[in-house]
């Protein structure tokens, strides 16, 4: 048993290591010059970043990624809030709940290539131009499942007596919503906002179909890396990862805060 266990542990540790190693190597190369596959250690500089920042195309891609992210996430939150509350009401018929859930999860579960293509042909036939607005719609459709699921889970755990108690004490609909329901949903809302933003910021496959000239950052990256492995791309990759890291950190802080309050 002992050698088997050691072997399995080694595989496990190696796997976790290999999840990060290639990415760290890429980040490393963004600070150096590379000649014939060898990193020249003396060449440490931020030159590639400087070059990146003077690239107007990259700047435009960053801007449209930010725009897409903010608009898509806001729309996703509003929509998933409305849908999750609607489907968790006792009065909503069962068929409606299951159908809404199925339709929300469908674009998320299908291979992205199908979701992307379905949106592309629809937009073409409806005369919606490809570009930033199309991408926003695409991201909302894709990311909606995250917000919906997170909120629905929280709502299903919520004691219905909480709303009864508020109404029993005389509260009207708006007070019930803003003072009792919404505070209970703060955590899942923040969670879905961060996760949706991260996904929207990285989404490539669906976006590729409907992006037109609206070029988000991952699409620009995709275009650049077809031509090979360069330190400039590595610099851009590092910056994108920085954004991901910030969002992940935010998520971690969010949950640390919660664990602390439970422990207390």
């Amino acid at each position, binding site marked *: 048993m002992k050698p088997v266990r050691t072997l399995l542990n080694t595989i496990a540790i190696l796997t976790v290591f290999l999840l990060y190693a290639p990415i760290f190597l890429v980040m490393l190369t963004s600070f150096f010059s590379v000649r014939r596959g060898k990193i020249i250690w003396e060449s440490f500089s931020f030159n590639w970043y400087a070059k990146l920042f003077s690239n107007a195309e990259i700047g435009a891609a960053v801007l449209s990624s930010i725009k897409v992210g903010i608009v898509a996430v806001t729309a996703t939150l509003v929509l998933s809030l409305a849908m999750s509350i609607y489907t968790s009401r006792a009065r909503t018929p069962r068929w409606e709940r299951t159908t809404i859930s199925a339709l929300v999860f469908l674009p998320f579960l299908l291979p992205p290539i199908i979701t992307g293509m379905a949106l592309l042909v629809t937009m073409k036939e409806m005369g919606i131009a490809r570009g930033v607005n199309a991408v926003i719609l695409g991201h909302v459709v894709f990311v909606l499942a995250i917000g919906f699921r997170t909120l629905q889970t929280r709502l299903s755990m919520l004691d219905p007596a909480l709303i009864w108690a508020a*109404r029993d004490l005389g509260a009207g609909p708006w007070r019930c919503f803003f003072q009792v329901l919404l505070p209970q949903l703060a955590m899942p809302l923040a969670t879905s906002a961060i996760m949706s933003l991260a996904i929207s910021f990285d989404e490539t496959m669906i976006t590729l179909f409907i992006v037109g000239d609206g070029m988000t950052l991952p699409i620009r990256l995709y275009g650049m890396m077809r031509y090979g492995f360069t330190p400039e791309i590595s610099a851009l990759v590092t910056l994108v990862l920085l954004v991901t890291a910030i969002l992940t950190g935010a998520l971690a802080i969010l949950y640390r805060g919660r664990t602390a309050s439970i422990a207390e």
Partner: protein
Amino acid sequence: MDLILDELGKCYGSTWVLKQINLTIGSGAFFSLLGASGSGKTTLLKAIAGIEMPDQGRIMHGGTDITSHPMEKRPFNTVFQGYALFPHMTVFDNVAFGLRVKGQRGGVLKKSVTDMIDRVGLSDRIHAFPAQLSGGQKQRVAIARVLVCEPRVILLDEPLSALDAVLRGQMQRFLKELHRDLGLTFVFVTHDQDEAISLSDRICILNQGRIEQIDTPDALYHAPRTTFVAEFIGLNNLFQMDANGDTEFGRTATAHSGSSVLTIRPESVQVGETHARLKSSAVLTDRRFHGDNTLLTFRTVTGREILVRRPGRGDTIELGEETMLGFPDRDCTVIPGAGPK
């Protein structure tokens, strides 16, 4: 300001979970709705609170028909099962919620809220969040939250079911005192008969959505009107009696008409020497010691099990020993018209 339920009914789909509920809850009463799970007691409370709309009948309060009033407009407040405290608000904010809805602000609000929290003995936890409170403390907050609104009627939905035995005893005393001091109407839902008997002025026993009997605890115990009540409240011995007054243990002189069921409480059964008309020889088959009394199980010659409660250890008889059991007429209760048991 009596609360009157008139022919109330509620159905889900095709099953009636409440039918023909007629009852009057007097102003200032401590009124309990007692029943097993699925008896409809919680549905009835929800109908009174306005959470569920009845499909039939009326709810009257002080002469006004309030059947169609939404819950926020009813002069009742509810202490929910599991408390339903707002987890993101402190004790103060929870208690202040109802008054803020009514538009109270500033010093007046602060004074009523702190007074109420003081009254339930939680002054030192006023800024704590519900998650930081013990079960008993949460319960007190839930009660304070409704009391501060000065309702005419307080509805309590199994408020003590989540507490352990010791705490439950304390809270029962607390509720009883509160009821005495405030003189409000309490409508109390519970599945615990001891709790209902020791707290209530009147108890309504529900079974499968119907009322079995509404009475004082004493009357329910000593004069049950249905076999369900006779068996549901406390321990009891039931046996059949025909139109002539004949039973398996002899003929009784107790007044009766038609076939009926005779009941006798375990503490009223005589053991050994007996002059009762109804009597039987029996063998002791089980003995359960309860501290201040002992519960004995006998098997009669007719094969029926009879429960007998004796004070103290009740150890004058050995297991397997045969003795006489007597059922004095004055201690037997007749439930007329009850079917064979």
